[in-house]
C-alpha cells in the first residue's frame, strides 16, 4: 500500500471530490498557479482550470461570502484560508451570514472553509492559531479537526459532501510529519460527528484532537513503560457536533479524564467538554476533570517561549500522574 502524508491525503480527498462532482470548486489566495502556500492545491489549476481553482484578492470576507452565494445556487465551494489565523477576517460572514442561513432563510450553504492551523512551527502570533473555540459557539456551523492522514482525507470528502457549512482545521505541523498507508482505490469517508479511540486504555482518558493526539500517544507510551499506566486516547475528530456518546463511554471506562488542547485555556473547548462530562457522567468520575492547554497569552515566536507556552508531552505525563494519584 502507498505511504501517504497527511498533506497528500488531504490533496487526494480534494482531488477526488473535484473529479467526482463538477459543482466542487476551490477559491482562495494563491491557490491557483502557485498551488497554495503549503502546496495543498498544487496541480489543481492545471487539471481543473482557472474557472474551478480561483485565485482571489486578499479578501477573506469576499472568499467566504462569494462561496456562500455560489453554494445557495447549488455549488460546493471549498475556501482556503492561507493560514487559518485569517479566518477571523471572515468571522462576521461565517457566524452571521453562513451559519444562520438555513435556520433563518431555509438557504442551504454547503461550503467548506479549510486552512492550516496550529503551532509548534515557530510561526508566531499570526501563523499558529487554533480558532475552533471562536466558532464552537455558533449554531449552524460544523467543525472538524483531523489528526491522521486517513481522517485528513476522509473528513475533507465528508465535509464537501455535507449539506451544511463545515470548518476544516488541518494542522500544519502534521502536514509532512504524519504518514500512513492508504489504499489507492478505497473510498474514505470519515463520518462527521464521530470520535475515534486512538489508543485503548483503562486507567485514565485523554480527550483531545488534531496534533495533540500524537503528543497524547507519546505520553501514553511513556506512562505505560515507566508507570504501568494505560491511557485511553480519544481523538474527537469533530468538535461540532461533538460525540457525546464517545465522551461518556471513555469516562465510564476509566473514571479519570484529562482534556488536552493546543489552544489557550480560558474559553477553550476543554471547558465545554468538562461541562458535558458533568452533565453526562458526573457520578462516574473518581477525580476532577483537568485540562492541559496553551497558556493564556498570544503565541510567541522564539522557540524557548513557544515551547513554554504550548502544551508538551512532559505536561501530559505530569498531569496524568497527578490524576492517577488522585
Amino acid at each position, binding site marked *: 500500500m502507498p505511504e501517504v502524508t497527511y498533506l497528500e491525503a488531504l490533496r487526494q480527498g480534494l482531488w477526488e471530490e473535484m473529479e467526482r462532482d463538477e459543482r466542487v*470548486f476551490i477559491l482562495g489566495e494563491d491557490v491557483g498557479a502557485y498551488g497554495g502556500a503549503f502546496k495543498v492545491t498544487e496541480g489543481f489549476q492545471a487539471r481543473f482550470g482557472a*474557472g*474551478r481553482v*480561483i485565485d*482571489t*484578492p486578499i*479578501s*477573506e*470576507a*469576499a*472568499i*467566504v*461570502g*462569494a*462561496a*456562500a*452565494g*455560489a*453554494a*445557495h*445556487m*447549488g*455549488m460546493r*465551494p471549498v475556501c482556503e484560508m492561507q493560514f487559518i489565523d485569517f479566518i477571523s477576517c471572515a468571522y*462576521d*460572514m461565517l457566524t*452571521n*451570514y453562513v451559519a*444562520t442561513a*438555513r*435556520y*433563518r*432563510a*431555509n*438557504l*442551504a450553504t454547503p461550503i467548506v472553509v479549510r486552512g492550516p492551523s496550529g503551532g509548534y512551527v515557530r510561526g508566531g502570533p499570526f501563523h499558529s492559531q487554533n480558532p475552533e473555540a471562536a466558532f464552537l459557539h455558533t*449554531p*449552524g456551523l*460544523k467543525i472538524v479537526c483531523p489528526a491522521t492522514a486517513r481522517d485528513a482525507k476522509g473528513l475533507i470528502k465528508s465535509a464537501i459532501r*455535507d*449539506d*451544511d457549512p463545515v470548518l476544516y482545521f488541518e494542522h500544519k505541523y502534521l502536514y509532512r510529519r504524519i504518514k500512513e498507508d492508504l489504499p489507492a482505490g478505497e473510498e474514505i469517508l470519515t463520518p462527521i*460527528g464521530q470520535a475515534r479511540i486512538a489508543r485503548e486504555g483503562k486507567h485514565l482518558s485523554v480527550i483531545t484532537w488534531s496534533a495533540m493526539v500524537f503528543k497524547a500517544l507519546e505520553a501514553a507510551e511513556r506512562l505505560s513503560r515507566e508507570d504501568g499506566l494505560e491511557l485511553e486516547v480519544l481523538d474527537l475528530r469533530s468538535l461540532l*457536533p461533538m460525540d457525546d456518546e464517545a465522551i461518556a463511554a471513555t469516562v465510564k471506562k476509566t473514571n479519570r479524564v484529562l482534556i488536552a488542547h493546543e489552544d489557550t485555556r480560558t474559553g477553550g473547548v476543554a471547558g465545554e467538554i468538562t461541562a458535558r462530562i458533568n*452533565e453526562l457522567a458526573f457520578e462516574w468520575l473518581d477525580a476532577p476533570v483537568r485540562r492541559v492547554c496553551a497558556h493564556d497569552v498570544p503565541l510567541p515566536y522564539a522557540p524557548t517561549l513557544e515551547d513554554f507556552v504550548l502544551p508538551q508531552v512532559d505536561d501530559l505525563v505530569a498531569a496524568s500522574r497527578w490524576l492517577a494519584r488522585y
Partner: protein
Amino acid sequence: MSATAPPAAPSQAVISGLTRAQLHELYYWMRLTRSLEERLVNLYRQTKVIGGLFRSLGQEADAVGSAYALDRSKGDILSPLIRNLGSMLVQGATPLEVLRQYMAKAQSPTAGRELNIHFNDLTRGFIGQISHLGDMVPVMAGVALHFKMAKQPRVGLVYVGDGAMSTGAFHEGINFAAVQRLPLVVVSENNGYAYSTPMRLQTAVKSLADRAVAYGVPGVTADGNDVLEVYQVTRTAVDRARAGEGVTLIELMTYRRKGHAEHDNQSYVPPGEIEAWERNDPIDRYVRRLTESGWASREELGEIDAKIEKELDAAIALCENEPLPDPSTALTHVYENHQIEPHWYRGLDA
C-alpha cells in the same frame, strides 16, 4: 454631501422600449410599496407588528425602477436592503408575505424566524439581506460567480447605501466581482442618512459613484426619484452585465423622508429638509409625467389605486389573526441532518 436640496428640475430622460402597460406597472409597484407600508404603520400602531418598522417613503422609485430593469424570465436575482421593499414586490414577493413577516406569523416565509423583509426565494429571484450591511455584496458576487461558471445569461443586482459602502465587506465584494468580471450590478441608494449619520461623516468623496474608479468599473449617478431614469441607467448596467462586460456601480440620489425606523424622531435633520424633498416625491412626479404625457389618465391610475387597496384589504384580512409559530418549531433546521434537542430541565416540574 448631506442631502439638503432635491435636484432642480425633473429629469428629461427619454424612455424607449417601455409599453403603456409597463409604464402603468411601474406606477402600480411604487404605489403598492407605499400603500403596503402605510398599512403596516397602522398595524404597528395597533402593536400587531412585533418588531421595528422600516419605511421607504420617498424612495419607492429607486427600488422599483432598478428591479424592473432585471429580466425575471431569465432568472435574474437581486438582494435588497431594508428600504427596497419595492424591489422585492417587483420580483414577485407578495404583500401577504410581507405582512406575515412583520407580524411574525407561523405562515410567514421564514416561519417567524426573521423580521420584516428579510426573506428570500431563489426561484422568484430575491435573497433577503442580513442586518450586517455590506455582507450581501460578496454573497451576490458568489451568485453572479455561479452564473458565470454555469455560463447562464443571468444577472445579479445588489443594493447598498451611503452607509453600507463604508463597510469592508462592500469593498471586498465589489472588488472581487470587478476582478472576476462578474455579471453584477451594484446599486447604491444615496438617501442622505445612515440612521442619523449624514453622508459627509461616512465618506470624503463628493459622489459615491466616484468610488467606481477604485474598482475599475463604470460609475454612474442618476436621479433616484425619477423612476424612468432609474430604470434606464439600471437597464444599461444589466445589459452590460449580461453581455459579459462586468460590474457597474450606480448611485441613485434620493432621500429618506422617515427616520431609520418608525421610532426615530429625526431630531438630527435640519429644518426644512424633509419638506423640500416632499416636493420631489417620486410618485407625485411620476403621476404628473404619466398624465401630462398622455401615458395614463387619472381614471386609469385611480383604478390601479383601488385595486391595490382591495388587494391589501384581502391580505390583511387573511393573515391578521393567524397564529404565531408553535414553540416546538424553534429548534428545527439549524442543520440538515443534526437535530438540536430541548434542554434537560424542560419537562421537569417548574
